[in-house]
């Protein structure tokens, strides 16, 4: 018999039968499509992928894929994903959610996920609003934005997600938009391939409750690829400098990629488990010991 042909995956292999119920025109459709392409390019079979999310419109995304999905609790996608990765490091673990999910209720988990540096890919669909609950202010809403919870305009400055994750030491930080699906698919693919915590902020407009003047059409006109600007993605300070423009410029591509990836937490756990179990009785022998008593 000849050598087995490599399995080639098609984006359709990652698409579930569940039909998205997002509003027509929602940015999340393009993000989902870019994810299918990225997953097909990476080529891991769906049963080797776990996709975890919180709660929100964007958090519905795992259900639209054929990967194992966990549409969990608002703000708690990261701790659950970390648990899954530690329990089964062979899985490719993806995490997704909204800006509300990730930077307000779940904001406390982010620095810890970053400092642990598990091999995860965290994709935030940043629409600068709470979509699912019908248009309240979110942590990334721009100053002065009028919403149902800020009828006279927001009085708080937005969180800068890019600067925030860079400051905590995230080794891979990128930004994309569904206005450039090819670019977004490439970013997600690179994030998945990166051996460590990879963060992708996707500016994914909410067509129903979001800002009329910051939709996919405006992204198309405003976006600047970091590649075209000659950005050096291994230079942390230059990445931070670009990240400062969050909210005024739409830079897309990889802001920062640590060229010397540190060991991941999941790899260290595996190593320690091996070291501690070497020479110790097997679980079967321990169980036998109990049963004999």
């Amino acid at each position: 018999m000849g050598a087995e042909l490599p399995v080639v995956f098609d984006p359709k292999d990652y698409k579930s039968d569940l039909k998205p119920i997002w509003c027509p025109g929602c940015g999340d459709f393009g993000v989902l499509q870019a994810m299918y392409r990225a997953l097909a390019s990476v080529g891991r079979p769906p049963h080797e992928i776990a996709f975890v999310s919180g709660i929100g419109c964007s958090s519905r995304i795992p259900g639209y894929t054929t990967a194992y999905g966990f549409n969990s609790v608002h703000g708690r996608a990261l701790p659950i994903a970390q648990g899954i990765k530690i329990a089964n490091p062979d899985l490719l673990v993806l995490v997704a959610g909204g800006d509300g999910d990730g930077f307000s209720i779940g904001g406390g988990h982010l620095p810890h996920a970053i400092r642990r540096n598990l091999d995860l890919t965290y994709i935030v669909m940043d629409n600068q609003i709470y979509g699912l609950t019908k248009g309240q202010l979110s942590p990334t809403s721009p100053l002065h934005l009028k919403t149902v919870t800020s009828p006279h305009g927001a009085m708080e400055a937005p969180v800068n997600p890019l600067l925030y994750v860079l400051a905590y030491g995230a080794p891979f930080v990128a930004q994309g938009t569904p206005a450039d699906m090819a670019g977004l698919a490439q970013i997600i693919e690179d994030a998945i391939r990166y051996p460590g915590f990879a963060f992708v902020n996707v500016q994914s407009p909410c067509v129903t409750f979001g800002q009329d003047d910051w939709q996919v059409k405006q992204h198309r006109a405003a976006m600047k690829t970091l590649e075209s600007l000659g950005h050096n993605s291994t230079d942390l300070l230059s990445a931070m400098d670009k990240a400062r423009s969050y909210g005024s410029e739409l830079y897309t591509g990889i802001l920062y990629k640590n060229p010397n990836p540190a060991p991941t937490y999941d790899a260290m756990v595996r190593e320690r488990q091996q070291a501690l179990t070497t020479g110790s009785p097997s679980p079967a022998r321990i169980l036998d010991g109990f049963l004999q008593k």
Partner: protein
Amino acid sequence: MSTKTRGIDFSKLSLKDALDLAILVEEEAEERYVELAHQMEIHRTEEAAAFFRFMAINEKKHGSELSERRKKLFGDAPREVRRTMIFDIEAPDYDEARAQMSPHEALTVAMSSEKKAYEFFVAALPHLSDPEVRSLFEELRQEEIHHQELVAKELAKVPATKDALGDAFEDEPLAL
């Protein structure tokens, strides 16, 4: 062109690859129209949904014709061009869709998709070196013009209304 394709070197495109690319373009458009039809159905926008289903059938027909041609010329020779390499060439952009869109708006979406496809083939032409591939792309470009004419005829028949339900969503709280 860079935002529409990934990893395709047009100067090295063979006729087989070009046919496969064209088939995938139709397949992508067919799937997108089915998706849009579904989006319209769950938002009770029946007329636009019916039109998008009709467009999906058309795209499928074009795809099947191209597949037959490919089969005759190249049999089951393996495909080198993949879906991961193309992005919304003839498929309508997701952000063009709206809940409660009128038939006129749905037709306008189809028109801009046909224009997009036309522009794609026009932009690719200078990069092609194989004369057979060039004539295939010229043919495909012409077809897009023909499709535009068909859509334009339909557009002329329907009133240029904005949305199917007018102010039905006026009470929805929007970011102002």
